[in-house]
């Protein structure tokens, strides 16, 4: 519903005339994030400080207009999509690193700070920010905190919630609060813990205090080939079973390796059924010893063609192949659709064979590139959007894959969030009582449902959500 002139005036008074966008054609450009579905917001507000965020939320609360915080819009679950319209609270202007404390090893940042910028700024102090989503060159720390993002190195270092010490947040009533901080064991409920990963449904985040870690003096990176996904999966379990938790442990299947090698020429063995990328870090003694042990375990599990990066440039190349893998898949088909379900590590062979069968059944190519150490899948279903018939198939195949994950005791999402895309599947893993209790948290903090409506919880207004024929403009327009 378009906003009234008086609401728009109020917003402009708060954020400044140039920082409120209401031109319908421009709003169209904001309808999507990194996921499939889109919906046009009624306005964009670009606050430049906490007071403006609070004031915008108060205006929205007064008129019962939905508020959807938005960072860089790289999310993969529709978290930033204004599915009920309303105001998109664009946080990208708040991108100052307010403080880096090299002694306490913390940083205080605004939510629009780009993930990688923080590590760049911390590097002169020999510190870095550990969570490293593959989109780290563009995604924001605020978005990371809202989604509790992961990344390849989260196997050892933990995900965003393990690195957020405290936040300044604005609740649905426009009140501003500091939750937690840099002292351990603070008094009272861990509000910060529940707000991280709440996907914009409980608060808008306006400042974040994060932990920084020391850059490890030595890093060893190894690429190993395996005859099959099964043997590679067993090798993953064997490494961890040996008592070694590498910094990262990533798997790519044959389809992915072929595409990556064609694009990056990183020396990935294209005859392999699967490859593992393993990294350990620490002091030189430790990385050398651990890598030797890992090599032994991998060999015992049919690993071959092992190649350890000899220089930082070689390491970058090995990682470029992994981090750019999804993009490189564009060589096979121009579009991909993926879920990020998680299974217990030992169930990897089973779930991957199920994924393969589903792909065959739907006659859709599937490429697997994922965080094997965590059991966090990313089966990319490859297709061409301009082929309208294929959309339904893609959606159904994705749903079946996710179902296979759940059947094996897994979870719906390891790092992308539930958002819009997976909300309908929540009853697969949570009982009505579980969901009822979660919704109490929502009601306690946002009684009128102002913040990011239509996310996380199954939406009665959207019983079935096939890709084609969704409500968003993008689909109606046959664009997505």
């Amino acid at each position, binding site marked *: 519903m378009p906003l009234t002139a008086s609401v728009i005036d109020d917003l402009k008074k708060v954020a400044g005339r140039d920082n409120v*966008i209401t*031109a319908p*054609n*421009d709003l*169209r*450009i*904001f309808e*999507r*994030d*990194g996921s499939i579905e889109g919906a046009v917001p009624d306005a*964009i507000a*670009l606050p430049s400080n906490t007071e403006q965020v609070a004031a915008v939320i108060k205006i929205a609360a007064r008129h019962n207009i939905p508020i959807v915080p938005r960072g*860089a*819009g*790289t999310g993969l679950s529709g978290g930033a999509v204004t599915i009920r319209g309303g105001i998109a609270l*664009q*946080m*990208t*202007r708040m*991108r100052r690193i307010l403080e880096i404390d090299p002694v306490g090893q913390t940083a205080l940042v605004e939510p*629009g700070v*780009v993930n*990688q*910028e923080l590590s*760049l*700024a911390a590097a002169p102090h020999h510190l870095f920010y550990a969570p490293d989503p593959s*989109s780290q*060159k*563009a*995604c924001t720390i605020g978005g990371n905190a809202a989604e509790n993002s992961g990344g390849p190195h989260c196997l050892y270092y933990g995900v965003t919630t393990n690195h957020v010490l405290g936040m300044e947040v604005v609740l649905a009533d426009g009140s501003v609060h500091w939750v937690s901080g840099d002292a351990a064991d603070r008094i009272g409920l861990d509000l910060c813990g529940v707000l991280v990963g709440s996907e914009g449904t409980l608060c808008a985040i306006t400042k974040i205090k994060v932990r920084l870690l020391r850059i490890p003096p030595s890093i060893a990176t190894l690429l190993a080939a395996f005859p099959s996904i099964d043997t590679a999966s067993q090798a993953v379990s064997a490494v961890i079973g040996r008592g070694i938790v590498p910094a990262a442990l990533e798997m790519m299947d044959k389809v992915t390796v072929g595409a990556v090698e064609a*694009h990056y020429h990183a020396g990935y063995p294209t005859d392999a059924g699967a490859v593992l990328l393993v990294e350990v870090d620490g002091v030189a003694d430790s990385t050398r010893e651990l890598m030797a042990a890992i090599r032994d375990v991998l060999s015992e599990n049919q690993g071959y063609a092992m190649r350890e990066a000899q220089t930082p440039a070689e390491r970058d190349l090995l990682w470029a192949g992994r*981090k*750019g893998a*999804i*993009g*490189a898949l*564009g*060589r096979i088909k*121009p*579009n*991909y659709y993926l879920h990020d379900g998680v299974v217990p590590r030992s169930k990897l062979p089973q779930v991957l064979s199920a994924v393969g069968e589903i792909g065959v059944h739907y006659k859709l190519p599937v490429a697997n590139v994922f965080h094997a150490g965590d059991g966090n899948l990313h089966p990319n279903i490859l297709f*061409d*959007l*301009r082929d309208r018939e294929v959309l339904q198939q893609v959606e159904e195949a994705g749903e079946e894959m996710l179902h296979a994950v759940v059947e094996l005791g897994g979870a719906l999402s390891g790092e992308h969030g539930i958002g819009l895309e997976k909300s309908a599947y929540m009853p697969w893993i949570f009982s009505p009582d579980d969901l009822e209790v979660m919704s109490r948290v929502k009601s306690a903090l946002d009684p009128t449902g102002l913040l990011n409506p239509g996310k996380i919880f199954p939406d009665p207004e959207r019983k079935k959500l096939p890709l084609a024929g969704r409500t968003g403009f993008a689909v109606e*327009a*046959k*664009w*997505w």
Partner: protein
Amino acid sequence: MKPFERLSDDDLATCVHCGLCLDACPTFRVTGLETESPRGRIYLMTQWKREQLPFNEEQVKHIDLCLGCRTCEAVCPSGVPYGRIIEAGRAEVERLRRPNAKRRIAKAALRQLVARPRRLRAFGAVTRVAQATRATSAMRSGRQLPPLHAPFEVPAGRLAPAIGPRKHRVAFLVGCVMPILYPQSHYAAVKLLQLASCDVWFPEGERCCGALHAHNGDLDEAERLRDENMRMYASGEFDALVVDSAGCGSHLKDFYPGLQGRVKDLSEWLAEVGLPEPKREVKMRVTYQDACHLAHAQRIKKQPRDLIRAVPGVELVEMRHPDICCGAAGLYSTLEPQMSARILAEKLDDLAATRAEMVVTANPGCQMQLASGLRQRGSHIAVEHISELLVRAFL
């Protein structure tokens, strides 16, 4: 012709809307707006092309504000050919938009002045007089110009012979504005080529390569210039066409299929053929600004750095974002002065933080933009073309 006919739907379809390009885009970095990002621009052009949004004047500004720096293209994991998309998109926008005085003057200036070497030289001469009488400081664009000296002169016989054994014969692009604005960069570049055992040939009748025209939506004129130049290049033998201006180099590589493989940026070529042992130390703390059309369009980042590091005494310190545009972008600094200034301000902050004595780059637009920004801030950081720094080691 249907709207956006020149824009390829296949090109547009390669964008998967992942957003990894956003923070690589200088205009997104300063505005924080999807509409001023590569992803947003592609989305907009796609909707125009597919007639899902009507073409409208209000949104043309999003296309105008694109620097064409192609940083997004270098970071795109899906290989979206952004340079090709924005060039075609701009050509269509210029065709469909309402007449716009500023852009028409720019187009006319490009056609009537830049594409005509004699007129441009005359303009340079007039400007030198104006600078001497300080008349130029009254105009914004005048203040951006470097102090002009006598333009670059092609050596007698249109050939500069190799110093020592002759191993290669290269053609050298003199170009349109370089010889007038930065003759010293050209002299240094030619000297380096000679030191690298190259005979340097200056083809007769060379015209502007057409890069500025193409980047500003005048593809017709760009094609005309290309055809003329191709006839001229066909008249001689050469191993490589060496270009010391990144914008021209990238345009020649993309737009002149007839030259394919033979166009080389100066640093690319020097890294390939090798320079002799340097003669002397150059004690200096230097930072390197990637010219967008070198780093992103031609993906050349390593060679210039290797060459700089090879100069004894030089300490190369990197900016946090050496590969983000300085806001020059051809005519952009004149057409979109406000945005250009915002982008430049970020760049100068980054530059100052390195505490370098000199910033080196490989494109006249960047040189001019950085120098004018530094002058305004009263900074003493020097700006040089990479050829000028390198040649110091041999003087």
